[in-house]
């Protein structure tokens, strides 16, 4: 019986130790200094991915064609037009980031990629691509 109690107590103790590394409790209300990690490094839980509506999709297709034919400014304009319709569409922001990157406008590309990442509905593939763009922007002068 005693062994069982000791075991049980140990288990409880271990459990208590397990829940969120207890330090000496900090005084309530005092700020804990600490730099925030940049938003782009934060991983996101899986969220229902965003689905583009037909209007945005039509403009995405048009922008892709424009980009393919080298008219990057036009592609950017088309994507901006799409963003007025679906401002929370992470794919649109990502695509805009790609266009800016292709134009060598890396700072802008990074901003758009960060924006895309910050939106819920960005699936894993999109996030990876955004990270790729951010990494590229960091290394570029």
């Amino acid at each position, binding site marked *: 019986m005693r062994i069982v109690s000791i075991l049980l107590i140990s288990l409880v103790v271990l459990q*208590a130790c397990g829940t969120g590394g207890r*330090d000496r*409790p900090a005084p309530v*209300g005092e700020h*804990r200094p600490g730099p*925030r990690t940049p938003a782009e490094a934060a991983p996101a839980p899986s969220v229902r991915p965003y689905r583009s509506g037909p209007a945005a999709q039509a403009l995405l297709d048009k922008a892709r064609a424009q980009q393919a034919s080298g008219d990057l400014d036009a592609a950017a304009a088309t994507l901006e*037009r799409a963003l007025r319709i679906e401002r929370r569409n992470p794919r649109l922001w990502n695509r805009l980031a790609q266009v800016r990157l292709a134009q060598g406008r890396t700072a802008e590309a990074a*901003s758009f990629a960060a924006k895309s990442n*910050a939106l819920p509905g960005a699936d894993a593939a999109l996030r990876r691509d955004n990270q790729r763009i951010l990494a590229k922007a960091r290394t570029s002068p």
Partner: protein
Amino acid sequence: MAPKPRRKTRRRSKTAGSGKTRRPRGSRRWLRWLWLPLLALGMLGMLYTLYLDQVVRVRFEGKRWSLPARVYARPLELYVGLPLRPEDLLAELESLGYERSRHPERPGSYSYYKNRLLLRTRAFRYHDGAEPAHYLELRFANGTVRSLRHAGGGRDPALVRLDPVLIANIYPSHNEDRILLRREELPQLLVDSLLAVEDRDFVHHHGVNPLAILRALWSNIRAGRVVQGGSTLTQQLVKNFYLSHERSLLRKFNEAIMALSLDRRYSKDAILEAYANEIYLGQDGSRAIHGFGLASRFYFKRALADLDLPRVALLVGMIKGPSHYNPRSHPRRAKQRRDLVLDVLARQGMVSEERARRAKAAPLGVGPKGGRPAGRYPAFMQLVRQQLLRDYREEDLNSEGLSVFTTLDPHLQAAARDSVTQRLKQMERSARSDKLEAAVVVAAGDSGEVLALVGGRRAGYSGFNRALDAVRPIGSLVKPLYYLDALSAGYTPASLLRDQAVTLKGADGKPWRPRNFDGKTHGRVSLHEALTRSHNLASVDLGMELGLGRVIRGLRRLGVERNLRPLPSLLLGALSMTPLEVAQVYQVLAAGGFRAPLRAVREVTDAQGRPLTRYPLAIEPVADARAVYQMGWMLQQVVERGTGRGLKAQLPEGLRLAGKTGTSNDLRDSWFAGFSDDRVAVVWVGRDDNAPAGLTGAAGAMRVWGDIMGDARSLQQQPPGDVRMTWIEPATGLLADADCPGALQVPLVRGTEPQRKADCVRDGDPVSNFFEQFF
């Protein structure tokens, strides 16, 4: 005088008749003296003609007309799922001058019956290409577009862009305006009518037609008054174009010479084209209507190419006297004149008798006088100008005929303007104040595009633009700005602040004792509560803990550029900004921490539609997205439970918005700033003389804000990745659970949750409670 000795041969007398004396020989010398002045006169005349010829050439070929820049609102984009009420679309079509009919047949017309809209859109040339004309069928349901089809069959379009509403022209100082048409674009019917009525021999004469003059003279004598003019089109062009309107013999003479010159130098087509674009056809307030293109729009709300016979006849008839034959003010006269023109056309065989008869039976067909595009949005136009003048000179804007595509949403602008008008009146009654003024700025949250701008309560009045230029203390609007910074400095919405009396060093070293609005102190309050209820003392506590230096740096990062004095009063809003500047800062909060410069212009094209400049979307991360999310949540609480809760009565059920009230000292300035999922809006109410308006932010500006945001999109609830809604006991800032009384969920970044649990949670779990005391 003694007679000279006669010669033997008889000379024939120079003078006719007998008995007249011969002209004395000395007179030849006199004649000789006459030669010189005659020669001089002749030379002068030649020089004068040459001079007039030069004038003709220079004026005609140089910059002929000053074309104002045309300024457009944002185009409405139609797609399935667009939140759009049918009445709002109809209002847009009305502004566009679309004609409502039973069966829309021409571009620019529609029919609407039982939620079904048949629409023939007009083609339009945008910066990124041409949008063709469409024949569409739209259906609505629940305030959205439910279906969008090509009425003529074929695959449903995914997206259709309407032509944009013209909101203003940027005029040169002499207020001229044109819709330029090429010779090819002049309908044959118009040309035929014009020549038939005004200048039958246009093609053949050389600028002046003596026969026509004689003909006119004859008709006028017969009629006993002036019924016909003998001026050719060329002469009329010269009159309209070069010379002032004084009618003297000298003018007539100059006119004739210049007409001959014109005819010699330029083709009949060129002259006809110039005439069609120059002819004066009426007045719209201080704006002169020149040219058939503009006149067609002005009188009939149609393009010239879309005019039928009776309307063309009326226009041609008006040439003789646009005010005298103004169809709006003198419809009977106008009709008589039009019918006369139709008779002439029939008589000359241009149209059949039958057609003329039918045309005479038709009504004048004049459209209602549309609002002048210039002058309806002066406050917004000031912002447009400001932006354009960074890249264009004033002269270019006035005279090159540019097309400027702006971000204005006329529907939202109207809502803002109406709200200001109504609410200020109400406020003046209830607050027993008067001379209230207001300013409103509304922008798209993510892109910074300015959707509406109100500079004062008098709509259409171009004067002091309070939205751009009224610099006012922002009061509590400053709090979210450094609270945001605190969230990146280790604080959370659950952190506890001290809301207690404090004495600090103010300006000039004098002691400064801030007070709460209700005069009370509240002890320990959570950060979110302090913001929601706008506790001054807790805010000062927070700000001083952060340090004024850090607070100022944070404000700068958010885009505050004004002079900032590092005084504790800064924490309560001893900081003056314009409504536009406030909107810029709150835009960052509305866009997840990504700053987008507020702008009013999207693109500019030249008179031919070729793209000139595009102002692209530009964003920049300036604040941590997670902190911004937390701030957004707290600002939602302001509206839900805090100083902004009065909004709920105004807003539709379930609409989630975020905002902050702001009141400056002595109730001089009443502010409200906040955002929805799609828009950010700032409202200021106060008095120009800076006397107290007697209104808090909630009593004043918030009312207008609520009107504007009533149809905005609800804020989305999805937090960024590592932010979790966590149960907290507000009084202690400790972890709680759903069963704890007074507990609520606040968004916390993973890893910043309080370490300890609240008592109410302890009470439930004695075993772990027991062991907790050892750790």
